[in-house]
């Protein structure tokens, strides 16, 4: 089977196994553990815990220590969310904002539909090798193909904010890695994720939030 095809199936499987908490309670638990994991992963302090307002989960993750940046997410569902990036430097309270906004009501190329029609998922999940998992994790989390760097005045080329990520949990999880300024942690996290997802894919079992958020 073509490598590209294997990786396409893996791509979808990684999202399904790691980033699709089903019920509202699972989603709350996932986001709670996400906030909890930030403290040790970035070696800073806990963010404020999430809130549930009008059925929407919101929280602010403070990245002042890294980039003088705060990240506020609002998750309505697995298909609708936004993340505000608010940058405040020395502009006397003038803040710069960009918003990563995903609205599932609009059309997007239906990758899953075509893969389902192709019907080779089981075969693909038997044939993958470590390099395939690595490529998929790179594309989803560590080095998304389409990404934005933050330029002046920070100019940190190691930060790559993936532009094409439309799953809220995946997007937030990739921020955990991208906004971590500790090279040692990033290096170890690569290895950990490779092992974690390789095992999960082999057994086709979902990854719990606590395993996903574990420290490298």
């Amino acid at each position: 089977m073509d490598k590209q095809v294997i990786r396409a199936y893996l791509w979808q499987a990684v999202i399904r196994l790691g980033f699709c908490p089903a019920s509202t309670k699972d989603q709350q638990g996932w986001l709670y553990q996400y906030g909890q994991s930030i403290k040790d992963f970035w070696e800073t302090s806990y963010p404020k815990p999430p809130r549930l307002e009008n059925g929407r989960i919101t929280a602010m993750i403070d990245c002042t220590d890294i980039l003088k940046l705060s990240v506020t997410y609002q998750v309505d569902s697995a298909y609708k969310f936004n993340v505000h990036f608010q940058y405040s430097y020395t502009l006397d309270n003038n803040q710069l904002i960009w918003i990563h906004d995903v609205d599932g009501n609009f059309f997007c190329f239906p990758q899953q539909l075509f893969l389902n029609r192709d019907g080779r998922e089981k075969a693909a999940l038997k044939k993958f090798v470590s390099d395939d998992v690595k490529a998929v994790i790179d594309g989803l989390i560590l080095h998304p193909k389409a990404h934005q760097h933050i330029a002046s005045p920070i100019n940190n080329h190691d930060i790559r904010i993936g532009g094409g990520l439309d799953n809220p949990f995946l997007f937030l999880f990739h921020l955990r890695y991208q906004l971590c300024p500790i090279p040692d942690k990033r290096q170890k996290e690569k290895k950990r994720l490779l092992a974690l997802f390789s095992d999960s894919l082999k057994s086709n079992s979902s990854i719990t939030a606590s395993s996903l958020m574990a420290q490298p």
Partner: protein
Amino acid sequence: MKRNRFGINIDEGIPLVSEPDFELLYVPCFGETAERLNSWLVEGDKPLLLGGQIGSGKSTLINKAIQEAGRLPDVTLHFDQEVLNLDAGDFWSIALAGLLETAFAKGIDLNFCKLPEELGQYQADDWPALLEGLRPRTFSMASFNAKMTLRKKVAKNATYIAKIIVEIGRLLEASVKRPLFIFATGLDKFDPLSPTFFAMQDIVVALAEFKTLYEVNAAHLFQKPGSPLYPLDRLFISVLKSDEVIEMLAKRMGVYAQPVRQELEILANWSGGNPRQALRLLSHFETARKTRKRNTGESLAVAIRETTGDFFAYSPKPSDELIKTIRRSGTIGAAMFTLPGDKDTALRALYGNWIFIREKSSDASWAATVNPLVKMVFNGATPLEDQEVKLLRDYAMIAGISPSGLGPCRIDEKERKKKEAEEPPWKFKEKSGDQLLWEFIASGVEQPIQTNLSETLDVLADALLSKDRADRAILAYKDDNLTEAARAYLFAKANSYEYQRCKHIVITGGPGMQPMTEIEAFLSEDTDIFSVEFAGKWENSQLEALDKQRDRFINHQMLWWIPFNDLKDYLPHWTQLRQLFELFVLEDELLGSISEEEVRADLAFFEDMADSEQSPEGNVLSNLKIVLEYLRNIRQGVNHG
């Protein structure tokens, strides 16, 4: 304390103790003092006074030197952790118990006297029972009463006890076959002019028979001839150089240091070279810049103001003349510290960190500076000549902030200058940005700024949310009715991510009360967050006894609730204590910072997740319900009183 390998490690300036502490955070900054201490540890055989001002790094230096020399003390006596009455009975009992403990460990035969029987209810050779009586391992009312009775007997027989202590010391010395190394720690917590300090001088004499290291304040180094401390060798810990402070702060910030390097330089200047002051400034700066709507310049000003409040609010101020002399000459005569009468102000200024001394500039004088945090509260000081204000202003310029736009000093500088040009000088009253900044910082000494509960939580959050760090806060309040809800709110937030057992107690001080006993009992409980409400009018002796316990609280997360009207009376007695506490004055209006909607949103999130009461989520829920009810009642006009 759990430390981050690469990230941020901020605390309130507690001493470094463990190897990881030193590996990650230690900056070799004690130079010749460290070398001399090291050589004394290895080769010395006489007693030594090691003195430094509050927060200068004495304990860290001692811990490091002991680690490097590989010479652990044979006996360690903590004079700041078991004092209940601040009397000779306490001090002699601490010394006796410390030596007995070591004697047991080394299997020394103590049958040279029958002290256990002589002191009371024990068999003549039952020394372990005596030790247990002097220093019970578990707290109970019976053991506490027995200890108090014993200590009274010890005080009555102090001369005899002194002889026994020396004798046990000699037996120990014969056993170790080298000079007996005694570490007398915590003497630095005693005001050099207090009767308590005089009460403990006999102990100093008894221990001077051995190779004893006395940890004292710099103020204790200035003794008059005839004082028992006068003939002892001494070592002084000076303030740090600016680049050493910057390095220390950078280590605390780990990988996060680079983006704030310039700000660390400003903070180092405002620290006056005192490591703990530098750390407190950093801690407030970190909180301030994370709080939205503040730019970096404002955050620096706020950090300076908050640190000033923590350390100096309501402190009795030294005389203007003293400060003027130091400012003019950059020195202070050593005689100023020992002359009787009104010159005592110099010693108090030194003990309270109003001034910093560096090194002897001649036989008769020391290089000295006024603590940058308090310069502006003295007559004759102006912002124009002040180096620290200038640095802050220059920073603001470089960073693209108007110097007049730093924090609350925001004024229209162009408009001000226009008015200044138009009006005759005697009519022009408007203040410059520098002057306003100067006054803003100075106000920290006069009165702590009020904060709402939400802002208070922002400052406390780093420590309150995690068991990794234990900080302490004094929360002064004007309205009794809000304290229960405020406490419930903080308890709820403390359980956001980790289950933390929170316990609250009301401790009453005043005539005939025994608040220290209650505190001792409370501390023996197994809990994560200790909340203490101060009731009654505490007497000076009770406040001072509490002040000496400072280091005993180091490992505890504490919230102290004090009526605002009492704060002014209490803080002047807590020169030591306030070093490890942050100070907040809560606004009367809880609704001003917390809305019902926010609390409902918090509740909604945790409601689905709570599996049991004994979980972080369950704890959050039960406490948030108290807050919600309070807010509802307030809205409906229900009187809590």
